[in-house]
Each structure stands twice: as C-alpha cells, then as structure tokens.
C-alpha cells in the first residue's frame, strides 16, 4: 500500500443530550506517502475530528483507517498507543510543550516513552532539523517565542522518526512571517525526510503551498485539490 493514510467510509457521531451531531459523514480520503497535504474548511466542518481519527487519538463511529498500512480501527488501545508512538508525530496550534522541561527535554520525551537509547543525541538531531538555534536548547517553553516553541514541537514530533506528521493549525498562533517559516520547515520534511505531513489551516495562501488539499464542509470532503505534478 503506497498510501500513507487512507480513510474509508469514516463517520463520527457525537451525541450531546440526545442530539446527534454528525461530525464526519462517510469520508473517503487517501494521502500518498511523502506528500504535504492540507485540510481546509469552515469552523465546525470536522477538520480536527478527521485529523484526530487519522492519528488514532480518537476512534471513528464507523469506517476504516489505515495508517502506514496499519488498520487503526481494529487495534486495541495498547496497540494503538504503540503504533501512534512509532508512526505519528503530532503538532498542535498552541505548541503544548511540557512547561517544566527544557526544549531538549521536551524532544527527548517521546524517545523515553519509546525506550530508545541515546535520547540526547537524537533530540539534538531533531532540534537541528527543526532549526532551533543551539542557544535555545536549554530554555524552558516560557522562555521561547511562539515560533521557537513550534520548532521544538516539530522536533518533538520528529523524535521517533515517524512516517506521518499531523499538525492542527500549526501556524494559528503565529504571525504570517513566522507561520511561513514553519510551513517551509514542514515542507522540507516531506522533501528531504520523506515524511507525510498533514496540516489543518484556515489560510488559503498556506493551502496552495501544499500538494494536496481536502476542502471540508459539514462533515464531508467537499472537494480535493491535487497540485502534484
């Protein structure tokens, strides 16, 4: 299977006080490996819901998800944790670094969870990939700018060398210049490291930077735009 991510007929229902909200309705989507993809759409259209289901943070009500060939919809909770750790890196809008750990310790965290050795060395390599200046490695998150924090978060996502990076509005809290730098960084990861990167964005100018865009509307994929040559 050369698709990094495949959703087949995926639905997600929430019921709130008897009302059923259909956040995703029979979504089909394939994202090939080493592709920089984006998800766009109005607020509440189901972007985050879809990304979380792709990443195994949430389970679908119905349908199948394959990530790097793994049937995520069938896995037990423990298996899901293990595969998520190995296959996926997450980047969040508000960075979500652990406040009492330094930049480099934050990057070491997923390595420790994976019980890998040489965490310091690997973390350094990742911070380098994310282009965080060495002088910032020992800083706590609250001693870093938003852009720097997001670089640490990306380095953390890269730590276990995952096939896929999922980013929910990674530039949402950044000014457009810094945001563009982050997008450029993510783009390089697909080109140089052959990562599959999926971002959610509200910015059309960012979306056109990506090779594949899924436009969502009311829990469905309205249209996919493929800019691959």
């Amino acid at each position: 299977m050369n698709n990094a991510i495949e959703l087949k007929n995926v639905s997600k229902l929430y019921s709130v006080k008897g009302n059923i909200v259909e956040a995703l309705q029979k979504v089909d989507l394939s994202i090939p490996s080493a592709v920089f993809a984006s998800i766009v759409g109005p607020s509440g259209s189901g972007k985050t819901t879809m990304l979380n289901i792709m990443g195994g943070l949430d389970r679908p009500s119905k349908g199948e998800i394959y990530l790097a060939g793994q049937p995520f919809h069938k896995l037990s909770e423990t298996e899901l944790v293990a595969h998520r750790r190995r296959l996926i890196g997450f980047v969040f809008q508000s960075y979500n670094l652990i406040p009492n750990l330094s930049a480099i310790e934050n990057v070491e965290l997923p390595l420790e969870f994976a019980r890998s050795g040489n965490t310091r060395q690997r973390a350094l390599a990742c911070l380098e990939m994310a282009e965080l200046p060495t002088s910032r490695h020992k800083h706590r998150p609250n001693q870093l700018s938003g852009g720097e924090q997001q670089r640490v978060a990306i380095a953390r996502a890269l730590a276990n060398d995952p096939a896929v990076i999922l980013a929910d509005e990674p530039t949402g809290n950044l000014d457009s210049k810094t945001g563009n730098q982050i997008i450029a960084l993510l783009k390089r990861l697909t080109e140089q490291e052959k990562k599959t990167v999926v971002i959610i964005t509200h910015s059309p100018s960012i979306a056109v930077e990506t090779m594949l865009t899924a436009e969502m509307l009311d829990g469905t994929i309205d249209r996919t735009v493929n800019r691959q040559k």
Partner: protein
Amino acid sequence: MHNLRRGFRNVWRSKVRTAIVALLVGLALSLGVTMMALDSAVADQLAGVEASVGTELEIRPVGSFGGFGRGEPLFMDVLNGLEDMPTIVEISPVIVYQYMPKMSGLGGREAIEEVMRQRMAVMGIVPEQPLRVFGGGVAELTEGRLFTPEDNGSLVVIVGTEYAEQNDLVVGSMLLLDETEYEIIGLAEGEHRFANSTVFLPFQTAQLAFAMEDQMTQAYVTVDMLPNVEPTIAMLRDAIGEQADVVSQAEATLERVAQSMDMVRGTTSVGLWLAIATGGLVIFFTMLLTVRERQKEIGVLKAIGSSNGDLLVGFAWESVVLSVVGAVVGIILFVTVGQFLASRLMANIVSTPAVTQGVVTPGAVEGVVGQIRGGGGRGLFSGAGSIAGFSMAGGSISSQLGDVAVNFSAGLLARLLAVALGLGLLGGLLPALYALRLRPAEVLRNE
C-alpha cells in the same frame, strides 16, 4: 527511570502549593508518629510490666496472704499430679519460717539485742532449685556450695551474707537453731537486705526442723509462657479446689495496668488512624487537583506516546514524593515539638491513679523491709507478710513506669516512611486512574 525523575520534578512545579501540602501532611504525620511513639512506649511498658510479673504462680494455704506459715497447714499431696500439666515447667514447694531464738534467762537489753541479731527468716528450699527469698527474688551463692539432693534431711545450711557477718559466721562454721547445730556450706546474697539475712535449709531438713512433715508453707509454680498463666491458674484452681489458694504474684496489679494501658493504646490507635486519614485526604485532593490542572498535558503525553503504565508510574511517584516530603516535615515537627508533647502525655498517663493504684513503690518496699528488720519484738511480722506478698513485683512495675521516654527511633522512622509510602500510593491512586481515563482527543480539544 525517566518517569520517576519527571514525577519528582513535577512535585516542585508549584512550590507554594507543595510547601503548604507538605506542612499539612507533615502536621498530620507528626501527630501520627506521636501516636506511634506513644503506642510503642506503652507497649514497652506493658512488656516490662509483664516481664517483671513473670510467669510464676503461688499455691498458698487457704486464706493466707502468703507468708510465715499463717493460715491452714498446706500438705504436700496438694501438688500430686500437677507436674503433668503441660503448661507447668516447675513446681517448687518452700517452707518459710520466722525463727526467733528463745531469750536466755538473763533478760535485759543485752539479751534482747542478742535475740534481734540471731532471729532469722528461714527458707526451706528443694535442692537444685533457686534460693528463693521470701517476698520475691532469689539469692545467689557467693561462697561455698549449693544444696545437692543428698543434703535433703541433713543438717546443712546456706546463710545470707549480712546475717553471717552480724553473727561472725563463715563457711564451715556451725549455726545453732533450736539447740541443733547445722553446718554452714555456703553464703548467699540477694538483691535486698531482706535476702541477705535469710538462712536457707534443704527442704526436707526444714520440714524436720519445724515439725512440718508432709507440709509446706507455699509452692511456686513456673508456667511456660505468659499467655498460659491465666489458663494455668484456672486449671490449678480446678485441680486443687478448696485445699489451697492459687494466686498470681501481681495478677490484680497487672490487670489494672494492662487495662489502662489498653485504653491508652486504643486512644492512640484512633489518633493514628485519624492522622493517617487526614494526610491521605490532603494527598488525594492535591493529586486530584494536579491531575485536573494537567488534563491537557496528559492528553499531549498520551498523544506523543506515553503508555498508561508510564503515566501511572509518574503520578504514583509524584504522589509518593509529595507524601515523603510531608513525612520529612512530620519528622522535623515531631523531633522539635511532638516528642516532648508525647513524653508529657505519657508521664500523665503513667501517673494516673488507675496505673499506680495497688502498686508499691520500691521505696515503700524498702520501708517495709526496714520495718521488718528494725520493728522490735511486738508482732514482728504481723501484717508485714501480706504487704511483702505482692511487693516485689509491684515495686518493679512502678519503677518501670517511672522513667518513660518517648523517643524517635529507627523503627519509628521505618514505620513513618512506610505510612508515607502507603499514603502516597493510595492517595495518588484514584487521581492517577482518573488521568488514565482521559481521552486525548477530548482534552486536547479545548484550545
């Protein structure tokens, strides 16, 4: 390992809160240690009292308070078959006799002094058994030799050192007793003056000397262990019936002391559990608050690959560290304040009437002994016997209770740390389980 280090660091994320929690837990635990210290002090006291009372019983003539052959005669056949009781280690019949030489015809001061010097407490002792002294304790040989079975019935004696000195007696010299001469084969010394003016005869020799064939004045029964004392008393009373009284040397005293000590221990254990529960609740609510505050972080940790096991270890350790920090504060509070409080409390407990009632202090015993010795001719031993009857055991109980120290010990430290560990684990358990149940997609949503 990393989980532990992170858990440890997490404790210091909110220093003010940790300080307050440590103080609260410390207060509770120092109260807990105080209770533990009190309890073990009381347990020590109780053990001391029990040890001093010992496992010895007495079989006495009906109605006597134990003493110089007062009351009904006690015949040896009372003891028949008693050796077969499984809890009985040894039965030692004795003859206790107060010997007064007859005043010589001359009378006057010198004659009285002569009588005073020669009067003696006589103990008839079965050969090869300890040289029991009337009123408690045993005398140890200082010179010469002990009785052998062959001495039984022969005219030999062992003399207390003080008596020997006053009457210029040495090993080998002869002692006159009711116009019969006895050879002194040894000298013996006991813990108190009374023992040192006792003269010991082989049991059968004593029976012959005082015309008490087939009789004794009392018998000491040694029980194998303390818990068997009560049942053995019951069995003996059953077997002996109306022929004699069976008494434990300080049965009543022991009971009274034990009762009030039990009461104290009951109170301390309630206090201990209250303290532990308070500490546990503080830890529990702190950890619950912590987990709720860090919901999103927990979601992130799960998203980046933390297993439930990793999370659990981290939170459990954080909770244990918090609790141990509390314990350290508790130790400091105990050593600086609690210890003295506990000692004061213990001193109060010890001096309550319930404990001291019926306990004769060593001073009082000395007084009685002194009175016996210097009491002059009139009714020399009347009444004194009954006091001395339970005096020695009582005396040592009271001296045991006198010097109570409530100290911090290694054992106490170990128990405190165990409690802290338990509190940390238990108090942190539910909050940690709550953390495990958080679903990352949900907690990460509130951006």
